[in-house]
Each structure stands twice: as structure tokens, then as C-alpha cells.
């Protein structure tokens, strides 16, 4: 596997950085069941560039979710870049003749992605109060970008329907999740004009620089078209606050800063109640995802101890959902 990647990149290097260019320091950063991430340095005659390769190692299983292809991901990164949102810019989308499979190469942006560090490490203390506003501004930019072809459009009721079906199939009987499904269906806001969404915009998928703040928005694979409040609500889900429950936006900021940044960068006006609705829907989704990770252990598909333990995180979403319901969601 590593040989195939190294060979492919060596062959591609002269095209990217001129004659005689090569690859150094190829290193696998992470690998899920179907996707690999590699870091390497592209060494040209007079420049070195740190790059990231993402490549799919197993065919996409459309029934497993709504992940987009890497070609669509590349188009999303480019679209976001063109409207000025911070991204790790696209360097190359792999073609069949590159021998890398389904893959793309982007620049490597320096910074921190670990949510817990971002909310607690003193290195980020100065930039933390600015992050929520920045997130609002960046979301307004993304939401104004023209969506690349091939993305699905999903509203609140469709999203609830999809997750309710997954929940039903799991066979779990959890009254708080049941109550949340029924309640959120009952009070679903009227659909808003749909926009391009990042789809997984949260602390953990943002590259944070201690001085500049948000240096890049990563992980575009869940991008789709829908209600702008979905992206704003997702970054407020308590499960991504990493212990700083008092700071609703990613564990680093306040709702008003997120909304102000959004409006100031030209975003449509969104009432806080709509953000809270999507935040609750987000907690519910994460609860169902935790149940699914447990299910993947229970049915024998995965054997790691991590999977069943994530199942014990369902209760965190339930306690948050009860609070949101008590607060009169």
C-alpha cells in the first residue's frame, strides 16, 4: 500500500513542481476503514511544499451515509477557496493514470485540530474569544458559494426521517431520543431557502492557528445543501465543547458572536431559536451515531474496545436533549 502511494507520488512530482522534483517524508497520518490520509513533502528545484494526500481505499458504500466523492470534495474546497473561506487549497485531483486511486492532494496548513487543546491550551487563550465570530463569517462565505453538482438537498424533516429510520433499525428503546424525534418533528421550522453547507462544521474539523484563528476548514465529505442554521447549530452541539459547556460555540465562544459574524459577512438573518433547533437535532444525530458505533461492535463488524465505549456516550446527548427540552426548545 505504502509502495503504491510512494510510486504514484514520485511519478506525479515533476508535473507538480518541475523536472527533477521528488517526494520526501511520506507518512501515514490516519486511516479509517475506507479512507487514508498521508503527509509528504514535495521537493522541487528551489522549493519545498508540505502536502496532504487523501485517498479512498475501499469503494464508497452509498447506504452508509452521504459522504461525497473525493472529486466532489476537491470541487467543494475550490468553491470555498474562491469565495475567500480559509481552506487547505487543492493542489491536484488524482486521475486514473496517476495510479493513486480515488485521491486528492491539498496543501498542509499548520495549526491544531484537537478540540480539547483548542479550548484549554494557554497557547490559544488570546485567539479563543475571536473564534466564534470568525466561524460565523466563514459560514456566511461558504453558504454564499455556488454548490458543485451532485450534492444532496436535505431539510430538517428529511434529516430527522433519515436518523429515525436508523434509530428504529437499531432496536433501541430510549425514551429521551424518542421524545426528541417526535418533538423536533412537531416543531420543525418552515424550510429556508437552501444553501451550500459544510455539513460537519465543528471544533475538531477546524485547523486553528494560535495567532490567526481559523486557518482552514477541513473534512468536507459530509457537505450537502440545506438550511443555513444546520451548520450554525452543529458547531454548538455540547459534545464538541470539550468540557467548556459554558461556551456554546465549540467550547470557545458565544451564540451572539457567531450570529454577529454571520450577519456581518453578509449571511441571511437567522434567529437564535433556529440555531438551537438545529443544535438539538445535532445532539440527537450524534446520539444515534453513538448507537450505531455500538451496533457495529454488537454485530461483529468491529472488534475495537473503542466502539462499545462510544455507545456509552448516548447518555451525554440525552442529558443535553432533556435540558434543551426543559428550556422550551
Amino acid at each position, binding site marked *: 500500500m505504502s509502495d503504491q502511494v510512494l510510486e504514484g507520488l514520485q511519478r506525479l512530482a515533476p508535473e507538480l513542481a518541475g523536472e527533477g522534483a521528488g517526494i520526501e517524508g511520506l507518512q501515514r497520518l490516519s486511516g479509517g476503514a475506507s479512507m487514508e490520509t498521508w503527509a509528504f513533502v514535495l521537493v522541487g528545484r528551489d522549493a519545498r511544499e508540505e502536502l496532504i494526500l487523501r485517498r479512498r481505499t475501499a469503494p464508497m458504500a452509498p447506504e452508509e451515509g452521504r459522504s461525497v466523492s473525493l472529486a466532489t470534495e476537491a470541487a467543494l474546497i475550490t468553491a470555498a477557496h474562491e469565495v475567500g473561506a480559509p481552506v487547505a487549497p487543492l493542489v491536484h485531483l488524482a486521475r486514473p493514470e496517476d495510479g493513486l486511486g480515488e485521491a486528492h492532494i491539498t496543501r498542509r496548513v499548520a495549526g491544531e485540530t484537537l478540540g480539547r487543546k483548542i479550548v484549554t491550551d494557554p497557547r490559544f487563550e488570546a485567539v479563543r474569544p475571536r473564534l466564534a465570530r470568525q466561524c460565523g463569517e466563514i459560514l456566511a462565505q461558504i453558504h454564499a458559494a455556488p454548490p458543485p453538482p451532485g450534492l444532496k438537498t436535505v431539510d430538517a424533516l428529511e434529516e430527522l426521517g433519515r436518523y429515525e429510520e436508523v434509530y428504529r433499525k437499531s432496536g433501541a*428503546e430510549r425514551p429521551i431520543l424518542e421524545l426528541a424525534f417526535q418533538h423536533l418533528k412537531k416543531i420543525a421550522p418552515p424550510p429556508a431557502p437552501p444553501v451550500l453547507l459544510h455539513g460537519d462544521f465543528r471544533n475538531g474539523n477546524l485547523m486553528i492557528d494560535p495567532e490567526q484563528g481559523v486557518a482552514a476548514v477541513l473534512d468536507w465529505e459530509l457537505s450537502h445543501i440545506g438550511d443555513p442554521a444546520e451548520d450554525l447549530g452543529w458547531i454548538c452541539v455540547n459534545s464538541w465543547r470539550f468540557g467548556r459547556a459554558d461556551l456554546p460555540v465549540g467550547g470557545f465562544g458565544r451564540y451572539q458572536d457567531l450570529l454577529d459574524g454571520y450577519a456581518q459577512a453578509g449571511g441571511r438573518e437567522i434567529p437564535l431559536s433556529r440555531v438551537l433547533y438545529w443544535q438539538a437535532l445535532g445532539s440527537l444525530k450524534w446520539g444515534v451515531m453513538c448507537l450505531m458505533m455500538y451496533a457495529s461492535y454488537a454485530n461483529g463488524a468491529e472488534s475495537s474496545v473503542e466502539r462499545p465505549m462510544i455507545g456509552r456516550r448516548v447518555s451525554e446527548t440525552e*442529558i*443535553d436533549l432533556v435540558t434543551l427540552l426543559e428550556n422550551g426548545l
Partner: protein
Amino acid sequence: MIEHPKAEELVEAVARWIDSVRPQLGPRDAFLARVASNALSVVRRELQQGPAAEAAAVARLSAILGREGTLGDLNADLCARLRAGEMDAATPGLLAALRANITELIAIDQPSYAPEPG
């Protein structure tokens, strides 16, 4: 009650051993060892707090539903009534009972979790 050692003591001993070998492990295994140690902490808390929490949850749900049964029966019955629209967030006492149940469950699952402020 089976003693010498109690189940809690066995769990504690295994957790301590995992923690003692963790520093010698590679990054992936060190991470999984931490998860394993956390899993044993959940088991220990469940052994200690689970029976009382379950009995209390059964009592609360029985009061709301006006019937008796195991926790599984009562949860299933409540889910069915919520789904049918016979009960909802406005049902008197329901949110309070669910809050009490989930508070005791999270004390077992993740006592350090900082919940959404009220």
C-alpha cells in the same frame, strides 16, 4: 454476594494493571488501553450504582405510566406512547422523571461530562 475478591476489586486490579503497562505501548495501543481502562471504570460504577439507579428509574417510570414492569418493559412502553403522541414534552412529570433517570445514568457512563447548562 460473591466476595474475596468482589467483582469491583477484580475490575480495579485489571484497570491498575492496564494503567501500569500503558507507558510502554505504541500510540494506537496506548489510546486503546486508556479506552479499556475507562471501560472498566464504567463497569465499576455500574456495579456500585447500577442496581439503585435501575430501581429508582423503574419507580419513576411506573409512576408516570401507571403500571409495573422491568426497566426494559417500561422504557419500551413509554417509547410507544411517545411515538403514538399519547405523551409528549408537556406531560406532567415526564421531563422531571427523564432528567432524574438520565442524571443517574450519566453518573455511571461519564461522570466528568459537563452537560448543557440549564
